[in-house]
């Protein structure tokens, strides 16, 4: 257990024994804050898991299949160009060639360059998940009550997301301990100010939970998720659908190459 959460519990327990109404209210709000803090961390973890899984899957898809589509569309553009060159008076052929070239460029831009190393799928260890939860509880921007602290938390949270997606446990630990030992982590200006701060934090955290739910729902409805879900189901049955898709496009590429040879030979 961290120093800060011990302090909060001690504060909450000692406040409960004190008779002042704002202090009793602060004790109740601190308990509520602790609960929403835990819930927010859990939701943030789930959303980040989903983002990271889909991001990694997207990279794999583009690496294995997307780049093949780019190669196929490039061949189709070349075939259309050869046909247009062979029939210079055919305006339709010219138009087909122009459309095919545009499509090839679009596909190439979408697929990106193929890297030498195949991207891996995302898998977080239990320790990574635990660390991420702690980070979200401690440094989530929506748990800040001052503008300067919030800005700092936003940067740190983005760094934490990056560390989580890349599976960098050391970096995640460093972000957490770095913030815990920073001067911004030290609080306290009396019960009244603490109460206002806690109420604001709870409100921000609740709003963020709603946002996360909406974002997660949107991701779950995306084509990317549907494709991944389909591939995961097939994988459970022993099928590697990503490879099957790549093989299908590779067949089309082979046919396109043969067609390009024929069209070129006819010139």
């Amino acid at each position, binding site marked *: 257990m961290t120093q800060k959460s011990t302090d909060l519990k001690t504060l909450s327990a000692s406040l409960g024994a004190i008779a002042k109404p704002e202090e009793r209210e602060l004790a109740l709000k601190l308990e509520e804050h602790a609960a929403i803090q835990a819930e927010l961390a859990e939701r943030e973890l789930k959303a980040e898991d989903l*983002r990271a899984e*889909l*991001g990694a899957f*997207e*990279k794999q*898809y*583009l690496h294995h*299949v*997307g780049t093949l*589509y780019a190669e196929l569309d490039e061949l*189709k553009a070349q075939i259309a160009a050869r046909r247009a060159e062979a029939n210079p008076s055919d305006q*339709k*052929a010219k138009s*087909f060639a122009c459309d095919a070239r545009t499509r090839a460029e*679009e*596909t190439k*831009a*979408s*697929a990106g360059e193929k890297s030498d190393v195949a991207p891996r799928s995302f898998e977080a260890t239990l320790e990574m998940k635990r660390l991420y939860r702690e980070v979200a509880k401690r440094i989530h*921007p*929506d748990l800040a009550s001052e503008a300067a602290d*919030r*800005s700092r938390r*936003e*940067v740190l*949270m*983005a*760094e934490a*997301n*990056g560390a989580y*997606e890349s599976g960098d446990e050391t970096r995640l630990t460093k972000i957490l301990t770095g913030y815990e030992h920073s001067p911004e982590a030290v609080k306290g200006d009396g019960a009244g100010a603490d109460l206002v701060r806690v109420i604001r934090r709870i409100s*921000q955290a609740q*709003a*963020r939970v709603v*946002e*996360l739910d909406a*974002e997660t729902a949107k991701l779950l409805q*995306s*084509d*990317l998720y*549907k*494709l991944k879900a*389909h591939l995961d189901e097939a994988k459970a049955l022993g099928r590697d*659908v990503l490879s099957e*898709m790549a093989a*299908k*496009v590779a*067949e*089309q590429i082979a*046919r*396109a190459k043969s*067609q390009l040879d024929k069209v070129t030979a006819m010139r």
Partner: protein
Amino acid sequence: METIEKPAAGGIVVRKNGAQGLAVRSAALIRRGIEDLSRESNWTRKPAFVGKASKVALSSHGNVCAISAETRGTAPRVTIYDLHNSFGQMALAVPGETPALAKHLPASFAWSRTGSYLAGAWAAWQPAIHVFDLDGKEFTGAFGKFQKLPSHVAWSPDSVYIAAATIGGKSASLRLWASGLRGAPPMEDAPLAQAGLPDWLERQTYEAEFGEEGAFHGYGNTVFSPDGKRIASVVEIQGEWADDAILIAEVPWLRRVQSFQAQGHVSDLTWLAGGDALVYCAASRAYRLDFEPLESQQLPFDAEFCVAHPTLPLLACYTSWQQDSAKGHLFIADLRTNTRYDECEADGVVEIRWSEDGAKTYAVSKDGMAYIYEPDFL
């Protein structure tokens, strides 16, 4: 380059690559993968129009011209439907058009090769051929005077000529007009050439066997050769057991070059890409007809409709009957190997057309179901 996007107050902390999120950038490729994954065959089917139409015409861009009649309480209209856009439809109107009171009036339509022009005749219009410029979305004009509406209309590949075939026994004819488009002479009511009663045709007498005589009924399905220099037209002979003939004539004079007696009634005919042969369907069978020497050869598949690929030795065919199947079939036939492949169950198909570049085939049934054949690569 990887960037960190700072959110507005209360916003989401999201990492993005470059200016555009990956999920957005790759959306089209993801959709393409999903479509390819779910595609079990190279055929897709989709409703083109509501109701039934005995006469439809398909363009090389996937536009269907049909008489839409089927919203209760509304008069039938000639309507263009776009197979690639469910919401794309356009009703055609001509000057002096009166609301059609009956459904299924005689009609005949044909698209030009590029899909830019449509020519047609409909019993609710004046008895003439009406021409529309679909690119310019305008009615170009009408020509010809018909006692009986044409049973078939055809465009020459360069859109310069329009041919119309009519039935009606001794008054039947095959006529050719200049379209008035693309530098052609202006439209006139009088045709450039006309073929009437085929005096070259032998009278068919089957009295001994079937107690009926085959008599000249008129001209039917008509198609120009790929180079536009010849025209092939079915010479229809009346009588259940009669044999139709095929007339090959020169354009624009309609002088007979060759003729051929088929076996049975010819339901469709198409020129092969090189123009040195055609394929016709008679009595539900497919035949190849070579011109030099004039020789017919039965192909090893049944078909009632067939359309040749614009450049490759392929046919897109439809047969309503197939052994061990209650349904009709669309399929592709490879004339190099005389084999059929890429079959698709389909009923009531009345028109088939290849796209201009030969990458797709469109087919449509009389009840408005459209079939699109789009192989990975041809």
